[in-house]
């Protein structure tokens, strides 16, 4: 009996914690449908009828859909590049014997631990020297070299790929790159998918690097655009519009998460568990 009571208390606490996680998003969605004046005067969980007006205010203030498009233009290619080149590099590190391999592996591990802020000034200095400010190249191309992903995929190759399979293919006369594309990539697919989800979320949510690279508002990615809200004065007087802008930026991720939370969660543990 006592055990059952304690169990019930635990469930109540867990549900309370879950509510704390969800409530801000719920309030956001409710408030997005209420007028600024309603929001300022009282609190309720019943949706209002001002969604249309708030929508007008948001649309008139900035083009969030441009932000969406920009974020996609950056995040999709960056994720694909990370997925392909990290697989290729991780596979090479795992399978081939070549001079400098251990050095390279060591450097990769060191760079996984180096704080990102350390290269920020040099990075900006480099891209402004290359006249790449406001270009998406500095946001996309560096994705080719993702040390953390390479590290994980190397471990992954070592744990899932059997060498006899490679040797059989070689005896059949297959070229190395062909072996990689036709045999290795499909076997690595689950690991690659896991890392790609993590990479995509990272790219999609990234704020500091786009903030320094992009200066023209029509080039802004979604987070930079949302963050530019604070500079506004007219929209800030209408809290409903602020809630709606934030909701527009958040809801698609929530929908994607509802469908693939399992994969997303496995991408978190991937980095920490040694194979």
């Amino acid at each position: 009996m006592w055990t059952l009571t304690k169990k019930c208390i635990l469930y109540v606490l867990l549900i309370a914690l879950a509510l704390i996680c969800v409530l801000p998003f719920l309030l956001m969605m409710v408030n997005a449908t209420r007028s600024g004046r309603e929001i300022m005067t009282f609190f309720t969980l019943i949706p209002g009828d001002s969604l249309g007006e708030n929508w007008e205010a948001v649309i008139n203030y900035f083009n969030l859909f441009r932000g969406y498009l920009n974020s996609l233009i950056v995040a999709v290619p960056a994720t694909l590049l990370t997925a392909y080149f990290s697989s290729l590099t991780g596979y090479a590190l795992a399978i081939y014997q070549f001079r400098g391999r251990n050095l390279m592996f060591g450097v990769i591990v060191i760079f996984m631990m180096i704080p990102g802020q350390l290269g920020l000034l040099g990075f900006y200095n480099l891209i402004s020297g290359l006249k790449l400010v406001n270009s998406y190249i500095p946001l996309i191309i560096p994705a080719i070299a993702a040390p953390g992903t390479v590290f994980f995929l190397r471990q992954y190759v070592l744990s899932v790929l059997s060498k006899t399979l490679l040797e059989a293919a070689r005896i059949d006369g297959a070229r190395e790159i062909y072996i990689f594309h036709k045999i290795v990539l499909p076997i690595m697919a689950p690991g690659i998918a896991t890392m790609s989800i993590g990479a995509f979320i990272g790219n999609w949510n990234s704020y500091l690097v786009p903030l320094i690279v992009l200066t023209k508002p029509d080039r802004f990615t979604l987070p930079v655009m949302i963050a530019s809200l604070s500079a506004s004065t007219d929209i800030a007087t209408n809290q409903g519009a602020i809630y709606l802008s934030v909701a527009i930026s958040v809801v698609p991720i929530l929908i994607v998460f509802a469908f693939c939370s399992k994969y997303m969660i496995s991408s978190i543990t991937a980095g920490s568990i040694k194979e």
Partner: protein
Amino acid sequence: MARNSVPAGPAKKKNINNVAYLFIAPFIIVFLIFSVYPVLRTLYLSFTSYPGYGEPQWVGLANYNRVINDKFFWEALWNTIKIWSVNIVVQLGVAFLLTIVFSDIKYRIRGLSVFRAVFYLPNLIAAASIAFLFKTLLDWRFGTLNQILAQLGVDNPIPWLTSPDIAPFSVAMINAWMWFGNSFIILMAGVQGIPKDYFEAAAIDGANRWKVFGKITIPMLRPILIYVSITSLIGGLQMFDIPFLIAQGTDMTAILRGPLQTVVMYMYDFGFRTFQVGYAGSIAYALFLIILAAAVIQFKIMNKED
């Protein structure tokens, strides 16, 4: 690792391992340009005076001297440490309690995958959106939280984000809210990786819950605990997005920047606002050295507890 055996046919004389250089070439080239060079370039700039254009002027250790004597740098570091400490205690504390609850053999709490997904949710959203969401929810005059509190009978609205005393605490809690699910998932995966026999053997020996926890779970989790706490240290001391966006753009900016000023925000101001790029570089390296020292100390402590 065993050397790959190549069939000894005459056509296969060429060493297949040479193809590895082609495979790693794109990574190496991009890595050198966009990762290694910027880090070294920042190091070089930290020894110069550089306004963002023209040629950097070599000034030796002058910038580092300035960092050491810059009370605003140390204040920013102290702010960062304060916010991070509250953040990490709450974040890991909650994650740890959750791990205990969900790994308990007696209670068998159900719904792990649902709870895990919900707890992880805040971590999925861009910091920019989170910052604006809380900026509006926690607004002291019109925010929803104070309205709820008012209905519960709290008469004075609490200045969650605008009081220099409360704002750092609020930022720490927002960060903890964003990250506890992430820590929980990693810790829980670690627990699930512990072989079941250990727990069963302990149950047969009649060990109670706390004994099992102290003698099996914690020691087995140690590598993961080290991983979680060191990565949060590295990430936490670089805190930028949330305090930056919370402090930005209100009429309270001047007051708030004080307690919410973190080291990376301070570096950002010099590097990208007032363009004392050389000085910003020395701040970046000073922070790096501090993070490195802290991580090494933390690793030493955690690794020799036995």
